[in-house]
């Protein structure tokens, strides 16, 4: 039972962060594409802005790994 709960917690940790990242990236991606269409010189800034939310899912992955293999 404990293993099931741990697997569920790990799934939540990575699943929720992945969903949040996807949602935020869709918004930042759309806005970034709009900004790039008007000002192509912003390419580097937009790539960084799109990449920032990735940290969320990476942290989610770390937390999920700690839940599953940490103890």
């Amino acid at each position, binding site marked *: 039972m404990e293993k099931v709960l741990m697997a569920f917690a790990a799934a939540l940790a990575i699943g929720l962060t992945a969903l949040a990242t996807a949602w935020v990236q869709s*918004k930042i991606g759309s806005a970034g*594409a*709009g*900004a790039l269409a008007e000002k192509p010189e912003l390419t580097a800034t937009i790539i960084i802005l799109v990449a920032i939310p990735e940290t969320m899912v990476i942290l989610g992955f770390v937390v999920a790994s700690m839940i599953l293999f940490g103890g």
Partner: protein
Amino acid sequence: MNLLLNPEGSGYPAEYLIARIQGRRARLVKKWDDILSGPAPAETLLPAYYKSLVAEYTKEGVWKYMLKEFRWVYLQMNRGLRNIFNPFFIYSETKTIVLCLRHKIEKETSTKAEDILLYSLLSREVKEVLGKEAELALLLEEFEKKFISSMDGTTGLKEIFAEEGLKGVEEKVVNVFMHHIISLKLHPVSHGFFVFLIDIKNIMTLYKHERWAIKTDPVFIQGGSISESMLRKTIQEGGITPIIRLIHQRTGISIHEPGASEIENTLFAGLTKYLKLKAREGSGAALILDYLWKIYTEARNFSILLYSRDIEKVHLRKELVIL
């Protein structure tokens, strides 16, 4: 029947359009006073960006530049945004309709009307009616039957044209559209805009009534923030002072020289200020509306500058919408 065209695509996400608009806002003229202080304001206004858009330096050319930009914004919008902004675009297209009718009455070739309709957002059905080579009275009858009778069954454009000419038709079409728009369930930003616009039209009616001592009862548009009883009370008070007070209450701007253009421009500046504040509050819809309104005021100022090269700058400034 649809007044506006219905694009096939689903458009782009709101965030994309807002980002593009924020980029495009940088191109708008911000300091009209700087332009006016130059040796030739009209020439100063023709940098490369405008030159490519305003193909011919005529009022129609400026109007086309505005329609082109409006069309671009409309086609980028997704369905949700199009629903919010349909009333605004219907309102902006009333001028296109009037311009087309004016070309017909001036017996010019229909090429010019077709030229204006090229960038217009009017639907194919409306364009077909306006593009017909028919007598204006018959054309008005058909236009009314197809597009206006569903909004207000008692317009009688043909009769108004016979009695008052195109000016009467123009006023009637704008009033019918305004009545129709304000009766719709509008987005709060759009609602605020139209309420302000109705107030502007009502105050201008009030001013003209007072200025030219018109004997007939003025017709006010319902739906503004200033009640009809308040407007009628202002008429009873008489003189220009209560009107100036009313303008100050609505816009927060004081007028020193109450001429027709100063009053209209002050009211427009008040609306510009209102939209600017709404856009700063962070709503995407408000930002888009603010941009569309700025394009409109810029085109208006632009055409005034192009047509008044010989007018003294002090007088010219009064004709422009400057905040």
